[in-house]
């Protein structure tokens, strides 16, 4: 369940060298739960990215004028009541998408959205990209949480195969890259997400969780006793193996202790979901609820969420759009099609708005959880009819504690890299980097400070 930090003693690695080791050595040798904390206290403690596919119905996205906004534009209007928490950034380009060698404009947009480097064009297992911005943050922030990051989505989580013009599905079906060669598959099954967060307790009910922890603890106590018994009868070589067992048990005990501490927070009682609901909105809401729970319990602070996979052909008859999303996005500038595409765009944004409102209602410190959370919402194509990767529709939401200039529309000069936004976000998270992808520096005018 906590595989990201699998602990493998060096000795085992050395002895197993006759084998071909498929895992990246260094990663698997990172000791689990290194007790370190970030030195600087950053104003923003959580970061989430929400990605939508197939570009945007642009006439509905941008406000008419730059500067302070009275009304949010149509795509974002479900957050009108929270308009002061929304900053629309105009004019950012993802030039790296244009530099990928080979076709598949949809893969280019998702594949480079958070890495800002041209990835290696392939539909084989030899995918190669760069560490994505969320994962750079995760490597730092995971030190304080049980789970490094959550990658969530609604659709397919296949990582292999050809998904767009000869590009691997890894480039269309996730935006998170742990290492240049390790795309992180999204999880679309709410039950699996629930189990990852809350184990087999079956419910977030503190009583049920406590009971589960108490039962695990009594079994672990017994396991410890038995291990001591076994240690007396084995030779020194086997001692090492038993020590690993002891260490593993101790680690779980530490996690239980952490969880017990966090269990005092008030949580809504949620039962373990059955699986994937067939209704889109119901599915999305469930995933948003789980993400909120993960934040509330501080199980993780980093997430990416694909409201649909890139080049998705899903239809949305429930909102009066029976068309497949991708063909519809080639709207030929026809007003009716642009409007229907807008309906999908707005529908997606509504799912996200639900989470924003939810976090805003949860108190934390002097304000709400939303104040110390920064969301990036957007996509790697602007006008879907032409597949351009410039002037991308992106918005920042939340981030009050960092002084985010909410209720504004800020436009940047032509050719300003999207990567500059990522650099700035990392700075707000207290994980400063000198450069990222094709960045040329940080972005100004994002905050009032």
């Amino acid at each position, binding site marked *: *369940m*906590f*595989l990201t*930090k*699998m602990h*493998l*003693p060096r*000795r*085992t690695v050395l*002895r*197993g*060298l*006759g*084998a071909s080791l*498929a*895992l990246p050595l260094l990663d698997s040798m990172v000791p*689990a739960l290194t007790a370190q904390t970030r030195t600087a206290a950053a104003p923003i403690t959580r970061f989430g990215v929400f990605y939508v596919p197939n570009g945007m119905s642009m006439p509905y996205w941008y406000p008419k004028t730059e500067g302070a906004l009275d009304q949010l534009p149509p795509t974002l209007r479900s957050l009108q009541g929270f308009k002061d928490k929304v900053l629309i950034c105009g004019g950012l380009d993802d030039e790296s998408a244009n530099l990928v060698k080979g076709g598949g404009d949809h893969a280019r947009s998702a594949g480079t959205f958070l890495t800002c480097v041209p990835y290696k064009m392939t539909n*084989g297992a030899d995918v190669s990209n760069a560490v994505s911005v969320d994962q750079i943050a995760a490597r730092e922030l995971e030190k304080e949480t049980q789970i490094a990051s959550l990658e969530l989505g609604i659709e397919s989580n296949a990582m*292999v195969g050809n998904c767009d013009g000869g590009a691997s599905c890894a480039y269309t079906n996730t935006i998170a890259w742990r290492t240049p060669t390790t795309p992180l598959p999204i999880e679309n*099954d709410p*039950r699996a997400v629930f*189990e990852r967060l809350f*184990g*087999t307790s079956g419910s977030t009910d503190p009583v049920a969780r406590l009971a589960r922890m108490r*039962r695990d603890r*009594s*079994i672990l106590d*017994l*396991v410890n006793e*038995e291990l001591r018994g*076994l240690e007396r009868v*084995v*030779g020194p*070589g*086997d001692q*090492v*193996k*038993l020590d*690993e*067992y002891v260490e593993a048990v101790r*680690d*779980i005990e530490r*996690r239980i202790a952490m969880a017990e501490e966090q269990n005092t927070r008030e949580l809504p009682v949620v*039962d*373990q979901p*059955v*699986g*994937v609901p*067939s209704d889109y909105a119901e599915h999305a809401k469930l995933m948003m609820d789980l993400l909120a729970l993960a934040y509330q319990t501080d199980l993780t602070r980093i997430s990416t969420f694909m409201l649909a996979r890139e080049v*998705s*052909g899903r*239809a949305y008859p429930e909102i009066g759009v*029976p*068309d*497949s999303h991708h*063909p519809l996005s*080639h*709207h030929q500038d026809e007003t*009716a099609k642009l409007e*229907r595409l807008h309906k999908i765009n707005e529908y997606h944004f509504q799912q996200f708005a639900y989470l924003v409102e939810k976090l805003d209602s949860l108190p934390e410190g002097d304000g709400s959880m939303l104040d110390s959370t920064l969301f990036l919402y957007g996509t790697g194509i602007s006008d879907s009819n032409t597949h351009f990767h410039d002037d991308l529709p992106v918005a920042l939401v939340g981030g009050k504690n960092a002084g985010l200039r909410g209720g504004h529309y800020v436009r940047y000069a032509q050719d300003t890299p999207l990567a500059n936004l990522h650099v700035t976000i990392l700075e707000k998270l207290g994980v400063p980097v000198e450069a990222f992808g094709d960045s040329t520096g940080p972005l100004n005018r994002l905050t009032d400070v």
Partner: protein
Amino acid sequence: MRRYDVSLAPSVVAGLMFAVMLGVYPMVAWAGQPEALSRELLDRYCVTCHNQRLQTGGLSLDGLDLSQVGTNAPVLEKVVHKLRSGQMPPAGRPRPAPEVVDTFATSLERALDRVAEMNPNPGRVSSRRLNRVEYVNVIEDLLGLEIDGEELLPSDMAGFGFDNNADVLSITPGLMARYIAAATKISRAVVGSPDTRPVMQLYEVGFERRDVRAGEDLPFATHGGIAVRHHFPLDGEYVFAIRLKRNDTIETIDGIAENEHQIEIRIDHALIQRFPIGGMFPGPDPGMLIAVPEDDVEGQRLHEYRMTADHALELRVPIEAGTRLLSVAFTDSAPSPHPSGQLPGIDKVFISGPFNGTVPDDTPTRRRIFTCRPSDQQEQTEEACARDIVTTLARRAYRRPVTTNDVESLLGIYREGRSERDFEFGIERMLEALLSMPQFLMRVERQPVDTRAGDIYRLSDLELATRLSFFLWRSIPDDELLELAERNELSDPETLTTQVRRMLADRRSTRFMDDFVGQWLQVRNLFSQDPDGALFAGFNDSLRKAMIRETEMFFRSQVRQDRPIQDLLRADYTFLNEQLARHYGVEDLYGSHFRRYTWDDDRRHGLLGHASLLTVTSYANRTSVVLRGLWVLEALLGAPPPPPPPNVPPLPESDRRQPTSLRERMEQHRSSPVCASCHTRMDPLGFAMEHFDAIGRWRESDGGAEIDATITLDGATIDSPRAFREALLASGDEYARTVTEKLMTYALGRGVDFYDAPIIRRIVRGLEADDFRWSSLVLGVVMSEPFLLRHAPVEDVLVAAQP
């Protein structure tokens, strides 16, 4: 220095003695004093490179004292191996005549064997955890529950080519968390806990043949679809949902435009529901490329149907708890694909539940664990029954008689559960604890009291039973083995022989056969192999499975019929189903089931004609003589070359306009001395298999160039698959040694080292006397010192083993 305890030596001698008694390995008694080893060959052919100044390959032979065979055994075994496998001296250097090599190698072997006889070293296998395959098998044998290992546990890494390598099987925190979660889920499922939450399970069909019955578990007269064994944990309602295959980009449902089709769901062969699908809105879909125009209402309805019609394929039915066979398949006849469109296909099946579940009275798993039922609800009555249950389960799970402490500890957990809820919850908790215990998850071999560093000791009979059952059944011992071990009768050579034969005949031994052959021959890697669809349109998931199945069934039949190990390369038969037969160009063989087939010609005799390994040793778009040559050296001759030096560019792709044969391009390997040292050994072996393409079909030409698969090996011309097989088998004992080495590695769960070489030579000599039969190989390994004995570590156990 190694030090042996004299007082323990008799047990070693006894170990060797019963081997003699059985005639399994005739001991070759070396008469008289050993003749002095001559340095002549080394000085003349080896020290030019392997001297103290150059240290080529980290080896210097000029200062080596041949009178100190014991001390120098690690180096000398390497010398023997390099000479016997013909790797040294390298091509292009002066080489001694084969008889000279043989004489020298034989004298070296004799000297090494003699030293090993006087100072035996059985090596030492570390304690290890169960691997995933073993865990799944144990749960089935212990509790009667089939589980999906891939869902519960991460995969295992391999060491020395096998994923049961003890050194690699460690417990990590992440894994421990998974084990505990698995224990909870399994104990709930087994008992039928009221805590069982409804869950949705997804079964993916993958590639589907719509024109044939998709498998033996599907009803006759069905086409395509899927059959799965699913565990229904409670009596209750379950929801089944079917999703059909969709167009990759538009995501409309395939094949429902023109005709109506029928899909039926069966549980344990009984018809539950028949669904009609398709044909409601015939005609072209106006929403395929661009959106349907606003005013085309009919078109919009049609498009919506194409997008969502399968949402209707859902039903909710009550089902009694237990593991049941679910099948979902088409029943309408599938004509040859309709010119105007494809056929619909089943993509996924979801099973959700239980809803409104109740604890079942009786299921096979409950029968298995509830060895008694309390007659009343008195605490004492219930506890007596719980004690009975714990004692029975723990003995099998721990693979030994239980102690008072074992039972009391688990009963403690039972009592917690009982006081929290009731008797059954107590049993569920106890089971959860049992499945988390180190005695269950780990295979730990005890060290006798007062053992000193360097001592050699016998495994107890119980430890032997566990080694045996995990070797041949990939699981825990059964009652018969345990009882024999408890009475200390198992290690009696005759009993041991009888038991090994019984175990091989038992159906559980197929687990060993499939697992061993899949890893030894690397055919398991076929699951991650993806031949280029544009070049190999015939390749798909069901063909992939058929290829692996062929190799598994062939290997099983060889072992079960106790054939000589050489028949693996020679046998004139195989196992085919219709799809694989067509792949091989065999006509007149129909249906999805596999049957024995005897070849008309000898091209495909033995393993080397199996598409599984021919595909696994190819690239996605072409064959690779290098990969195939490497495979032969590694899997059959036990002499893999070292990995290539860094920074060597791959061969350029062939220029389509100017066909060049692969052979011409491979000549580049010879032009560079760095490449040549290994490729002159690898490439010819691969060329000999060039008549088989990258998915194992026979061919006469490639990319316009005619195939030339003739090679020269040790001076002989090899121009047919038969000649190639025979040449490999004729290479001294190298093939037999390799098979023995692989089986030994697998049986022990550790890599073989220099001190195992004399034992392996002895087993091979024993095989010769018994026609190289599989049973004598398995017995040879089981009766060997490394399998029966254990070496207490000498000093620093942390030193990495010799490569």
